[in-house]
């Protein structure tokens, strides 16, 4: 039998191929100029602009005697934005483009397991957003003199908000990637959603100064909660009283992110397509 040898050599393992995909995804991601500017570098650029513009003459957000410099005040929102861009915006656009251009269909025709494809996406998102956040924190610390937390408890909070936020953003991104009708339209369909969320979720403004109805709308979406969780990490304890509920509400942060995680997962599994919509 010509097939005798086929049986004896095992197929490459799913996780090994997932790592192979991760490396491939990372390499091509950093070659995409749009992605590098509008996803990877964006939070750093925005932090620099906001801290410079609002922080002129040493202006700050004051809570009683505690002065919080603008750079420090905006940092948590930018960290949260970075996580959302690297996970949600990145996957929603890149998968829509891959579907439209036939990359998904091509992969589907190979023995690559679908699980390895998604492991590759998750690996790329995790590593690139970790790198992005590190860069953001380094710039905040070195250029804008923002003090970073010293205690383990805050970093533990950072870790779970980061991981849960990345996971939620990723599954929502996979689900949302089915909405754009073409790869060309993907940016136009994804970016406004992300921008609006940034504005209403207190990334660019002090959340407590937004109109009440806007706060209520923002509270339905994960970004507001992710930013709030990050504020609990990077702002002094005194800032807690600026929060709308007078508390960091970390339980709610976890709950809302989890609801979106599960919802996005169910929707994504049901709607994911390897082919374009007009391709049967």
């Amino acid at each position, binding site marked *: 039998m010509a097939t005798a040898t*086929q049986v004896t050599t095992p197929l490459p393992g799913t996780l090994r191929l997932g790592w*192979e995909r991760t490396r491939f995804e990372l390499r091509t991601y950093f070659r995409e100029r749009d992605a590098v500017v509008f996803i990877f570098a964006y939070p750093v650029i925005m932090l620099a602009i906001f801290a410079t513009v609002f922080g002129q003459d040493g202006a700050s957000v004051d809570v009683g005697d505690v002065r919080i410099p603008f750079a420090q005040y905006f940092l948590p929102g930018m960290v949260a934005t970075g996580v959302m861009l690297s996970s949600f915006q990145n996957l929603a656009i890149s998968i829509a483009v891959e579907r439209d251009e036939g*990359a998904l269909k*091509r992969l589907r025709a*190979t023995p690559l397991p679908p699980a390895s494809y998604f492991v590759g996406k998750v690996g790329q998102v995790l590593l690139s957003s970790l790198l992005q956040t590190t860069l953001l924190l380094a710039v905040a610390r070195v250029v804008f003199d923002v003090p970073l937390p010293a205690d383990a408890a805050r970093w533990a909070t950072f870790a779970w908000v980061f991981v849960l936020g990345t996971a939620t953003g990723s599954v929502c991104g996979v689900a949302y990637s089915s909405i754009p009708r073409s790869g060309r339209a993907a940016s136009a369909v994804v970016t406004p959603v992300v921008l609006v969320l940034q504005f209403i979720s207190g990334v660019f403004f002090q959340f407590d100064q937004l109109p009440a109805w806007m706060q209520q709308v923002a509270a339905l979406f994960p970004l507001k909660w992710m930013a709030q969780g990050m504020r609990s990490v990077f702002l002094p304890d005194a800032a807690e009283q600026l929060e709308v509920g007078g508390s960091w509400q970390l339980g709610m942060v976890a709950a809302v992110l989890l609801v979106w995680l599960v919802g996005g997962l169910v929707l994504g599994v049901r709607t994911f397509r390897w082919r374009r919509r007009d391709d049967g």
Partner: protein
Amino acid sequence: MPGAVLEVIGLRKRYGDKQAVDGLDLHVDLGEIVAVLGPNGAGKTTTVEICTGFRHRDDGDVRVLGVDPQRGDRSWRSRIGVVLQTNNDLAEASVGELVRHFARFYPHARDPDEVVDAVGLREKVGVRARQLSGGQRRRLDVALGIVGSPELIFLDEPTTGFDPQARRAFWDLIGSLRDDGTTVLLTTHYLEEAEHLADRVVVVDRGTVVAQGAPQELGGRGARQAVVRWSEGGGVREERTDTPTAFVAQLGARLGEVPGLEVRRPTLEDVYLALVDATPDDEERS
């Protein structure tokens, strides 16, 4: 049949009110190159997509390497190669990176460097896919299709949009696959391509096979009779014959130097057009 690598019997597929494939039969033997030839909308791509597991059939029986494509698992996929129509994906990776990357998906991959050489992209190995010409891009598609050393490769309209030189070079590439013992099923609407490459041509129209055979024998003996033309008595005379040499010898004996003599065999194109035109109604074709 023991040598059959691909066997399709009574295949049917309908999209809305269009019967794309309508009782199609097809078999491909080990080591054969078979060209499925037909006009646009004849059902070629749908058939390939059913055979490669992308679509479900409405009716009929399909076996590819002994497996129903709807139930094809990873090990089955590792034994077939698929080159689909027009792709512009994977733009940011280089030729060498892509071939090496895809090689890792397979248990019996060929050496990536040899594959790059085989498709004639040695000089482009470090060039990103976005910078390749149409012909080079298609060669890359073939490289990714053959790197897993498939037993059977599907090529869906591989040379659409090529200039004649690129097409020639591509044919040489497919010829070299045959030399490696790979079985090839290709679809095309170029007659010269089918004639040049295929051991057997299957003409498909309106979702069903209207003729098949070696390129030289397609359409049967009658379709291949030579046509002898000459001038006699102030008009053009014409005779269809299986023995043109003898016929022309008779003419010469009778008339001396025969005025306006012309002996012509129908080309594959003549035969093909006769086959496809035999069924009117072009309304539904897209």
